[in-house]
């Protein structure tokens, strides 16, 4: 029977973009059957272990590995002296030692490696390495890092930022200057000034760092690894091994979350070094304790802001200084600085801006990429300021924000014009218009209290006593994709063939699936573009060209764009084949616009010309590879911060409703409603999942998540899930989500990167709500009960 047009449309949309197709790995993950990198196994493999520094800053006086090496079962012990080639690596600046080179600069820095036939043997042998340290003074904040005579972390630095920084312990410094702040300040009706602080958040991905390195007969190595960007790892690993890149073959293994924490190398080079040294496969898996030392964290920040407005609530000027703690090595600090500086004012139109953002080198743990990437810290501060300024003006905080919100055509402080929809005011309107959850939800019909609805939960700290509700709002702006002139591209290969009479598409990229859902949307794109039901995604490895990083909310956009482009090329070729085979049977082959839908070639009028399988039958598979780039960006001017620095902006707004036990200082977030513009929801279910995840991570920063570092010693005090707390289901509120789809004409399908923007606004919204409940200024996150009860340790 000949299918009608309606049938075809339904078929073509099944599993295509806009459908909430389910994750192919979802069932396996829920049932515990999914193979993560920590499940890797190889016959005859050895286990690697890392000896780490117990000090934040020390000279290594001596390192005696004899006893460790003599331990039965131990196959190799490596120190800096054993490295065969490059001894340093890094994402932006190659300053991180593969193994400490005579000095350790942070707590937990890798000093030596052991490979043994049992993980416990490796661990015990590592403990037998006699490392003698001479402790050095530590720098742990701006004051100590820039004091006269302060120890320099990298005295011989020669990176591209060295010439323009005010002090050698400053990684990078980026001003953004626009208009005339002094003049604006003189005519301001209201001015508010505040100092804010953001603690060190951890990505806390659940699958710890892990991988398996297998030495190959050609002298190379095969590395199976959980990472965020195979090719960036490869670029750093190969020089360390002294091998050409084609002898280091990397395959993505099951990744248990990333959130930026897998952008830098962890055990990749270490496992390969041990494998090449021993000639045996080497597996390395960090435990949770080690994981806290094995990856970079979110930059803690101190922020000073001054905002001024006119009598009518127009934002006149913003002046701010953002100091990020980059820790001991560069990681991605320069890019984080660029984000913090360029997004420092938030999604508000303001003609007079004087921003300075910088990152420090200190002896604290290295900090780098984490969801929100420099925009999170700024958002916490500017949203607190917007609330205070509204209060100063006697304006409703949402109304004040809406009055100053950017929109399409607004000019950012960098001079960049927002040339896509920017519905900031509308997002705020939407979250505010949502009905509020009922008051006193803990009260049950029987007159008793449901503890689960109260601060403290089943710990039974309140039955309603001292509990005050607060409501707070926040909105944020995040860039999508890599910025500041970075050549940000992805590569995709798509094949279409007839298999047993059915058209089947195969998509191959080197994209790291870290849980974000690329495996879902990338297949959806192929279904939509090629009109096929069956799409196979091939595993990601470095035999394929780079897909770029799974970060910066970019994979749907950039690798999605590459897949779309490759599909278009395949489609053209298929249509050529069709014309050659069947063109003489119907004039529409030559005259109509042709589409691939429902496994058929159809005209734009809906007439079926041929089955795809018929066209492909007996032919070689049709295959195309495309490298795809988003539109270029440019660096920010080092003095003015002006420049077309970003690809795309994304926006989310939150309303937080909290119940605060004002006597005990405990917080229950009751609801965190979010409205976000996603341009086009390629997979609405995944979009909601991203928003829920980002919102929860923002909540975590607001009320509990912090790596505590002793300011006197630089030592990490809570490297465990016992004391680094992440939200449980009882801490996770109802999260209604309102999705806007205003297309960005520059992006594939009009889509907008989704995964980060809600991380920004969730934190300040929760804190604003707690401020409303308590009347306290609350200038630091995460909030602690001490801050709400005046019982903090005196500084």
């Amino acid at each position, binding site marked *: 029977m000949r299918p009608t047009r309606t049938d075809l449309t339904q078929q073509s949309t099944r599993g295509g973009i806009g459908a909430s197709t389910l994750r192919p790995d979802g069932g396996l993950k829920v049932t515990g059957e999914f193979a993560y990198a920590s499940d890797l196994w190889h016959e005859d493999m050895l286990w690697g272990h890392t000896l780490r520094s117990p000090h934040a800053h020390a000279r290594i006086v001596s390192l005696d590995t004899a006893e460790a090496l003599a331990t039965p079962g131990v196959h190799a012990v490596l120190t800096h002296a054993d490295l065969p080639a490059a001894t340093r690596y890094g994402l932006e600046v190659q300053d991180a030692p593969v193994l400490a080179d005579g000095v350790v600069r942070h707590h937990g820095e890798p000093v030596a490696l052991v490979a043994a036939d049992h993980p416990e043997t490796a661990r015990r042998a590592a403990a037998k390495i006699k490392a003698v340290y001479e402790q050095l003074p530590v720098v742990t904040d701006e004051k100590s890092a820039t004091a006269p005579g302060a120890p320099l972390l990298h005295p011989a630095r020669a990176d591209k930022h060295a010439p323009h920084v005010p002090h050698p312990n400053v990684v990078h410094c980026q001003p953004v200057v626009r208009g005339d702040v002094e003049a604006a300040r003189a005519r301001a009706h209201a001015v508010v000034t505040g100092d804010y602080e953001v603690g060190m958040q951890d990505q806390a991905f659940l699958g710890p760092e892990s991988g398996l390195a297998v030495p190959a007969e050609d002298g190379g190595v095969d590395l199976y690894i959980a990472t965020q960007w195979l090719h960036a790892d490869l670029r750093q690993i190969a020089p360390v091994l002294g091998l050409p890149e084609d002898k280091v073959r990397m395959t993505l293994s099951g990744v248990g979350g990333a959130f930026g924490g897998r952008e830098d190398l962890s055990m990749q080079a270490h496992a390969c070094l041990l494998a090449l040294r021993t000639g045996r496969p080497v597996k390395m898996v960090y*435990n949770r304790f080690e994981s806290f030392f094995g990856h970079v964290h979110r930059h803690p920040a101190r922020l000073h802001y001054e905002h001024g407005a006119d009598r009518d609530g127009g934002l006149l000027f913003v002046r701010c200084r953002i100091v990020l703690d980059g820790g001991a090595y560069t990681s991605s600090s320069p890019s984080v600085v660029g984000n913090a500086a360029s997004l420092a004012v938030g999604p508000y139109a303001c003609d007079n801006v004087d921003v300075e953002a910088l990152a420090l080198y200190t002896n604290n743990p290295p900090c780098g990429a984490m969801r929100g990437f420099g925009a999170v810290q700024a958002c916490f501060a500017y949203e607190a300021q917007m609330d205070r300024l509204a209060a100063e003006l006697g304006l409703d905080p949402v109304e004040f924000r809406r009055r100053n919100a950017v929109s399409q055509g607004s000019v950012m402080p960098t001079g960049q014009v927002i040339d896509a929809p920017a519905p900031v005011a509308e997002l705020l309107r939407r979250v505010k218009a949502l009905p509020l959850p009922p008051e006193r939800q803990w009260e049950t019909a029987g007159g*008793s209290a449901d503890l689960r609805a109260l601060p403290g939960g089943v710990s039974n700290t309140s039955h309603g006593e001292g509990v005050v509700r607060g409501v707070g709002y926040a909105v944020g702006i995040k860039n999508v994709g890599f910025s500041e002139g970075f050549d940000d591209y992805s590569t995709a290969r798509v094949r279409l063939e007839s298999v047993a009479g059915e058209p089947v598409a195969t998509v191959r990229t080197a994209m790291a699936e870290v849980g974000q859902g690329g495996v879902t949307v990338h297949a959806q794109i192929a279904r939509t573009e090629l009109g096929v039901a069956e799409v196979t995604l091939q595993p990601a490895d470095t035999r394929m060209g780079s897909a770029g990083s799974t970060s910066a909310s970019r994979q749907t956009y950039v690798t999605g764009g590459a897949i779309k482009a490759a599909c278009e090329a395949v489609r053209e070729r298929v249509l050529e084949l069709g014309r050659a085979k069947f063109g003489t049977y119907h004039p529409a082959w030559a005259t109509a616009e042709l589409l691939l839908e429902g496994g058929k070639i159809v005209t734009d009028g809906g007439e079926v010309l041929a089955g795809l399988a018929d066209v492909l039958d007996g032919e070689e598979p049709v295959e195309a590879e495309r490298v795809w780039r988003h539109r270029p960006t440019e660096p920010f001017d080092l003095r003015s911060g002006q420049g077309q620095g970003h690809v795309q902006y994304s926006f989310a707004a939150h309303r937080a409703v909290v119940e605060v036990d004002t006597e005990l200082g405990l917080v229950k977030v009751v609801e965190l409603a979010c409205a976000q513009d996603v341009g086009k929801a390629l997979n609405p279910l995944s979009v909601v999942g991203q928003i829920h995840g980002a919102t929860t991570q923002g909540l975590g920063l607001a009320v509990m998540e912090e790596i505590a570092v002793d300011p006197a010693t630089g030592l990490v005090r809570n490297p465990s899930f016992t004391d680094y707390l992440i939200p449980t289901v009882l801490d996770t509120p109802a999260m209604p989500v309102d999705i806007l789809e205003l297309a960005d004409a520059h992006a594939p399908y009009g889509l907008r990167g989704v995964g980060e923007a809600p991380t920004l606004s969730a934190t300040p919204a929760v804190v604003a709500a707690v401020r409303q409940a308590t009347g306290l200024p609350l200038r630091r996150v995460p909030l602690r009960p001490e801050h709400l009860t005046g019982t903090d340790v005196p500084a």
Partner: protein
Amino acid sequence: MDFLRPARWEEALAAKAEHPAAVPIAGGTDVMVEINFDHRRPSHLLDLTRVTELYTWQDAGDRVRLGAAVPYARVIERLAGELPGLALAARTVGSPQIRNRGSVGGNLGAASPAGDSHPALLAAGAEVEAESVRGTRLIPVEEFYTGVKRNALAPDELIRAVHVRKATGPQQFSKVGTRNAMVIAVCAFALALHPDTRTVRTGIGSAAPTPVRARTAEDFLNAALAEARCWDTGAPVPPAVAAEFARLASAACRPIDDVRGSAAYRRHAVGVMARRTLAWAWEQHTTGEGTARCA
């Protein structure tokens, strides 16, 4: 590390006598964490999971004799009537998985000041049944905690059971953590009314080197309730009495500043919990109704 697996209690005692450094293990929720992190490397592990009597409890008149390995989940399900304070405390322990394995005996063996059972045991009144090949003794729980993670057991002794007084009045337990579930106590407070003796007993967790009773606060409250004839009349506890009780409970703390909380906060929070738990328990006592439910 040797792994000893006695099938019967007597064998366990003999093994412990032979290897006094052997670390007993049942649920493993504390011991395995310490071993996995290499904080502890005992010469012997003494696995008690085959000694099934440790997983049982008996009604012993005015007490419950609770086997050392009875998991928290059983305490919550089966003993909330007789031991309401302990059941409330058990509910706040870890996750469901931990509550299925962890036990009061383990909490006592570890003797962490942050153990959730301790305040409830102190408030209810309890004795630890310690046994060795030399014999059995009952140690009042107040005397059991001798220091941070230290207890009164002799090297050859094992905990066989804990004898907990059955509730004769309302009991409450309150614990502050910095998240709403699955959290180690920043501090905790338990309170039990004993109408039979017209006394109130308390227990404080995580706010001193060991779990402690707030004895001065108890003495003050007992005297004040007697003086105001509250037990006779069922009148509410006068606010000034509740406030002074809370102040004295705070004063009973000897807390430290650590990564989980400040000493000042712990003192403050114990005072708040003392006032609230007293109000809840007294209301239950006078009205016969509970004021909270968990599920």
